[in-house]
């Protein structure tokens, strides 16, 4: 049961090669723009045809290149919510919702959907008259009213103002929990993914690099791309020195860590994890000498970028603002060796099945 996807598709020089399974809960596909997220969803929905592979939904084969099966989108029972919602502009809210309910929609059901998605009173409005949040609710209602077996959400919050997002996220979270069907949630926004999803697949250059439980993904990303997507600001190429020492070659620093896995190709340090270190402890391990600091100001935190050696690349340190205080840049910063992320290049990463 659930959704099984194993597809390949070539698009010019770009190759999509995606493989994953999800049973229930919200599966996030996280990736930078242009990594193949939307293409993956389109292949599942039958809007695009993969070159080869297999897509199975609850035991029903939607696509199988070997057996020459390729169901029309109409027969797949796959709900798709587009980034721009793709509401029919000539239809009213009510007609939009009824569009996927067959020839004679049950009026009572329609009324319940309108109520549940807080659209009562807007039945006769057209999409052009709705706010962003209302449009999103109509799109959700329309998709769910068609009773699909899986929901695909393509960047559902990207068209909304950020101050609207919080409430809508909460609302979507409740609706998805209630529906209890597998959901694929495509996003490039790690905060959304962290708050809404249960599992993360990290898509990089058309390949599904890592599949992990969401908390673990953010706590301990496995690959360079995963670390970047999880919001890690500092990443350096790494040279393994021995079982507990690794050299961050971009920074000119040797780091001491509990254990260096053999596929380590990069190290990452989150910008929040540096701690000021007094001069007398400067000789200890994992201490960075701060030179050429540059300070920029965010609304609620200071960004300090610095060099740990001449000709190295810049390292970022973020400190929350405390009231009425200028930031003082210390001469030394320290990182706990257990907080250093040891990353593979993605090619050698093992897919962790959840």
């Amino acid at each position, binding site marked *: 049961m659930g959704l099984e996807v194993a597809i390949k598709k070539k698009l010019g020089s770009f190759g999509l090669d995606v493989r994953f399974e999800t049973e229930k809960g919200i599966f996030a596909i996280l990736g930078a723009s242009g990594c193949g997220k939307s293409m993956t969803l389109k292949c599942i929905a039958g809007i695009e045809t993969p070159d080869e592979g297999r897509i199975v939904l609850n035991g029903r084969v939607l696509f199988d290149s070997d057996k020459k099966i390729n169901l029309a989108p109409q027969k797949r029972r796959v709900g798709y919510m587009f980034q721009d919602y793709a509401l029919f502009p000539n239809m009213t809210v009510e007609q939009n919702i009824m*569009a996927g309910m067959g020839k004679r929609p049950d009026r009572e059901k329609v009324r319940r959907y309108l109520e549940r998605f807080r659209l009562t009173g807007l039945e006769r409005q057209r999409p052009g008259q709705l706010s962003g949040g209302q449009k999103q609710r109509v799109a959700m209602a329309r998709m769910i009213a068609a009773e699909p077996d899986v929901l695909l959400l393509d960047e559902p919050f990207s068209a909304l103002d950020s101050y609207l997002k919080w409430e809508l996220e909460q609302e979507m979270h409740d609706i998805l929990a209630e529906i209890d069907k597998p959901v694929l949630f495509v996003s490039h926004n790690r905060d959304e993914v962290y708050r809404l999803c249960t599992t993360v697949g990290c898509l990089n250059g058309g390949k599904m690099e890592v599949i992990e439980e969401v908390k673990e993904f953010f706590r301990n990303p496995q690959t360079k791309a995963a670390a970047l997507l999880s919001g890690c600001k500092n990443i350096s190429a790494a040279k393994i020195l021995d079982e507990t020492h690794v050299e961050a070659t971009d920074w000119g620093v040797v780091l001491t860590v509990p254990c260096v896995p053999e596929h380590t190709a990069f190290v990452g340090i989150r910008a929040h994890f540096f701690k000021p270190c007094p001069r007398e402890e400067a000789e200890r391990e994992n201490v960075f000498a701060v030179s050429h600091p540059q300070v920029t100001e965010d609304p609620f935190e200071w960004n300090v970028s610095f060099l740990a050696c001449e000709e190295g690349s810049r390292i970022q340190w973020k400190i929350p603002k405390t009231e009425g205080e200028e930031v003082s840049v210390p001469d030394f910063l320290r990182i706990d060796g257990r907080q250093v992320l040891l990353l593979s290049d993605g090619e050698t990463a093992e897919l962790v099945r959840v």
Partner: protein
Amino acid sequence: MSEWAKLLGGLDWSPLWISLKTGIVATVISFFLGLYAARKVISAGPRAKALADGLFTLPMVLPPTVAGFFLLLIFSLRRPFGAYLYESFHIKVVQTWLGCILAATVIAFPLMYRNARAAFEQVDANLVYAARTLGMSETAIFWRVVIPSAGPGVASGTILTFARALGEYGATSMLAGNIPGKTGTISQKIAMVIQDGDYAAAGFWVAVVLVIAFVLIVLMNLILAKGMKHIRSW
């Protein structure tokens, strides 16, 4: 004044009715054929697309007399196909009202086709994709999603088609001839009375054509403005 009274009193209104009937029938035929052709051409491969588009547009760029020549070549009773039609089905195209319709349709069809195609190509592909994932049939998608979104383009294509069909002269005169009360359209009437030097009659028919064309376009604009409320203007 008395001259006008005389003109109107003894007036044969048949050119008006023949032109209107021809225009309406040719527009209805072109409407469906044009939408169908446009839909097919859009989903065709690039080569088939170029070829079909060329073929469908040809009657618009050729002089109508050239189209008339080809139509005669096909439908003349002395030609195999024309003779076959007549002998087997008693259908006669040359010198009949059917000829008027055929000539007007062939000449006006490209306007419908090209406008419909341009309008379809403007339709947001995501709307169609969304409709498919919702399980709507392709026919329903076409009539309920594509056509309304392409509405303005399709409507303006229909106006132009009707206007063109209404005024068709060249191919009509060759294929259908100018038989008063049967195939005598307004355009042919104007040409005929001018040849007789009757500028008063010509002026009258010119005025009729002007009024029809103007009323038509204003009417369509009003309908469009109503139907386009959901589309924001810039």
